[in-house]
């Protein structure tokens, strides 16, 4: 297997390999030696002892059922012409022969990988074992190469074996380069996987990120199955494992990639289509395509189904897969299979998508914070607007001249209102009871100011809940402004009832507010709506309008018991809990 890639490297796309093992001076790179003969001769200790008649072409032997354990002799000859000089170190490199081998050059033992021997004395050699040839061995003419193989460790002695001949340095270097590439690709999958693992902490995309982690793990595992030799092992267990899982790994990577795409873009139908196409392609209905091309095709079909709003995002994975496919034509890709390249690009595109999603979420959060700050600001400004303060002070000074005791009561009530509002200003939610206290206090202030009697009556039992600050206060204020210009008595009735989907808050006043007042919604109602929307999103509804005998506002909102206050401390956090629409 390595040899295959190496040859691709050395002969740049497969220049014809000489049929016979004959080499000239200009020979460069590596070649797979051909013409191997195999003999089963456990008794022979040296090549000379093997009877020539025992040898058969190696392919014939391998086609038949081969014995697992034993000793074999492999033989071939190579022809070096007189131009092959010894200014470079040439080497022989058996790979994939288990368990131990001895290498003979013209009948002379030149190297051993592991230790050849019987069941007890054998030691496991290496998968890939370049053997340098000493300069004095390189002479023009025909040379005989013998390999003595013993196998008592693994179930087969032939693991896609081949014997290479070529430049020693080249043989060492190219395997190194290949190993680096495999580990590099593996590293990319691991890094992406770790990132996605981090993204599983983001609430909205927890499941998608988990799928992406699994996708990276699958790609990494598949990469190792496809490049098992990188472990330089001859143990059969590995190969059995590889043999069994290799196919499933490819299917699984495809399934996970497509699932990640489908779930990320929330396209169930597209997911079914993609998955169907992929499984059909994997289980043989269209054989013409490679795995990588099938995956590319399935993903493109799936992404074409994506909703127009997400089209721009969907371009990222498509672009990544196309780039991955184009990698096939780049020199550097040799050594790593195309499916893995596709996986690397796909993981990169998902990283980009996650970053985009995070950036959008951050924008949404910032906007929410800004809006929240604006509302808070509006609330305070509304309260401390000079108009309110100046009029209140005028009342104080008017009462002071006539009834100092009343002036005193008004000052106390005003001070209480300022204190309360300053205390709740930066809170996203306050207890309902506290809100009602504020309303009562405000009605007391206004009663004293207008020389009128305004009262708040709470009907029925009070339910413990949290509400956005000053929503009722604002409604009471609004009611007073618009309904009592000519009256010196007023009653506000408040009730709260629990419904199936939350609470129903009703505030009624017996004002003379006209029905047409609902047409132009004032800043007061706008403030209340904005506060409710900020805190509860779509879950809160407010209706305001004239009813028989007065004006009524009904707010439907979820119940937030006081003990959940900690969980909902910041209004921005509350907002964050709502899914963002990408």
């Amino acid at each position, binding site marked *: 297997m390595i040899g295959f890639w190496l040859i691709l490297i050395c002969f740049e796309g497969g220049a014809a390999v000489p049929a016979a093992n004959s080499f000239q001076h200009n020979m460069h790179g590596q070649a797979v030696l051909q013409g191997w003969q195999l003999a089963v001769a456990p008794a022979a200790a040296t090549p000379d002892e093997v009877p020539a008649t025992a040898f058969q072409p190696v392919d014939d032997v391998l086609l038949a059922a081969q014995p697992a354990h034993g000793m074999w002799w492999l033989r071939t000859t190579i022809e070096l012409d007189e131009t092959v000089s010894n200014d470079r170190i040439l080497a022989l490199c058996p790979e994939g022969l288990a368990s131990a081998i001895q290498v003979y050059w013209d009948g002379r033992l030149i190297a051993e990988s592991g230790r050849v021997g019987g069941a007890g004395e054998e030691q496991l050699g290496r998968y890939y074992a370049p053997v340098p040839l000493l300069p004095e061995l390189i002479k023009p003419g025909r040379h005989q190469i013998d390999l003595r193989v013993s196998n008592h460790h693994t179930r087969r002695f032939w693991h896609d074996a081949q014997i290479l001949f070529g430049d020693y340095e080249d043989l060492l270097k190219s395997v190194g380069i290949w190993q680096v590439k495999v580990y590099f690709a593996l590293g990319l999958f691991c890094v992406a996987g770790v990132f996605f693992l981090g993204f599983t902490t983001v609430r909205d995309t927890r499941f998608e990120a988990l799928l992406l982690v699994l996708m990276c793990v699958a790609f990494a595992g598949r990469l190792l199955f496809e490049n098992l030799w990188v472990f330089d092992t001859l143990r059969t267990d590995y190969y059995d494992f590889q043999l069994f899982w290799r196919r499933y790994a490819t299917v699984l990577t495809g399934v996970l990639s497509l699932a990640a795409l489908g779930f990320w873009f929330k396209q169930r139908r597209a997911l079914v289509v993609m998955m169907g196409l992929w499984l059909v392609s994997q289980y043989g209905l269209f054989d013409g395509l490679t795995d990588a091309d099938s995956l590319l095709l399935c993903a493109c079909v799936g992404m074409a189904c994506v909703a127009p709003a997400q089209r721009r995002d969907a371009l990222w994975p498509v672009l990544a897969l196309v780039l991955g496919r184009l990698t096939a034509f780049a020199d550097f890709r040799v050594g790593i299979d195309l499916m893995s390249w596709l996986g690397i690009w796909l993981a990169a595109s998902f990283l980009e998508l996650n970053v985009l999603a995070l950036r959008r979420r951050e924008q949404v959060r910032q906007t929410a914070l800004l809006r929240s700050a604006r509302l808070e600001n509006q609330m305070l400004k509304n309260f401390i607007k*000079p*108009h309110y303060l*100046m*009029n209140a*002070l*005028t*009342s*104080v*000074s*008017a*009462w002071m*001249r*006539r009834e100092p005791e009343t002036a005193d009561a008004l000052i106390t009530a005003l001070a209480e209102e300022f204190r309360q509002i300053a205390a709740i200003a930066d809170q996203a939610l306050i207890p309902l009871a506290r809100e009602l206290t504020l309303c009562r206090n405000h009605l007391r202030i206004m009663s*004293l*100011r*207008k*020389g*009128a009697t305004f009262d708040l009556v709470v009907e029925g039992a009070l339910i413990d809940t949290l509400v956005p600050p000053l929503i009722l206060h604002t409604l009471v204020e609004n009611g007073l402004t618009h309904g009592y*210009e*000519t009256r*010196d008595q007023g009653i506000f009735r408040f009730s709260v009832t629990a419904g199936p989907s939350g609470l129903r808050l009703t505030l009624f006043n017996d004002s003379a507010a006209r029905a047409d007042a609902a047409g132009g919604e004032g800043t007061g109602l706008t403030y209340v709506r904005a506060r409710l929307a900020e805190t509860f999103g779509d879950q809160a509804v407010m209706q305001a309008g004239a009813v028989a005998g007065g004006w009524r506002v009904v707010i439907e909102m979820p119940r937030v018991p006081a003990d959940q206050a900690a969980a909902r401390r910041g209004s921005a956090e509350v907002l964050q809990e709502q899914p963002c629409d990408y």
Partner: protein
Amino acid sequence: MRLLIVEDERPIAEDLQFLVLKILGDLVSEVALETHLEGALQRPDLKAFDVVFLDLNLHGRDGFEVLKQVGACAFLTIVVSANTDRALEAFEYGVLDFVAKPYSEARLRKALDRLTQPLHHKEPRYLPVRHGAGLRLLAVDQLVYVQGADVYSALHLRDGGQVDSEKTLARLEVLLGAAFVRIHKSFLVRRAEIAGLDAAGGGRYHALLHSGERLPVGRQRYKTLKAEWGGDGALS
């Protein structure tokens, strides 16, 4: 003097009443209270009032509509309001004074002083007048002189036109301030329009305007004017 207080907070209205009575004492023949403007403007005796104290919420869209409306009326208006940020604009529409809330007794006294001793304040930019069924904002710089006619005044404009105002000459004299001068019991003239004075025979005096018009000048007022304009009768 008859006063009307328009104020939606009754305790404040009563306080204003109390203070005005304290300041003006016997000068006041009647103080009426109204909680809002619609009620006040519908009073059949509206024309009888000399001064209206008005709590004006200029934040509303129609704050200046109200100013136009009261500006065209016969009475003089003193705004008493917490919305001080637009007080300067209110002056441009012919409000006599703008008292910020919370007010003090001293500040109210100063406002009421304006009724009797016109201060040398800047003239308003506009004078609201009735125009057919509606209202019209007259630009004061178009005004040359005013001729008093008992319960109303005729405003003579630069273009030769004439518009009537419900306000008496005395009230306009208070409102228009130092740029205008009373030359006769029936004539109020823009100082800058007077080209010269001449004494006709028989103790009759005239003021010559740049437009060529001659307006009668009262004998007592002639002396004051002459002192102001110099002995040769030419504008100094």
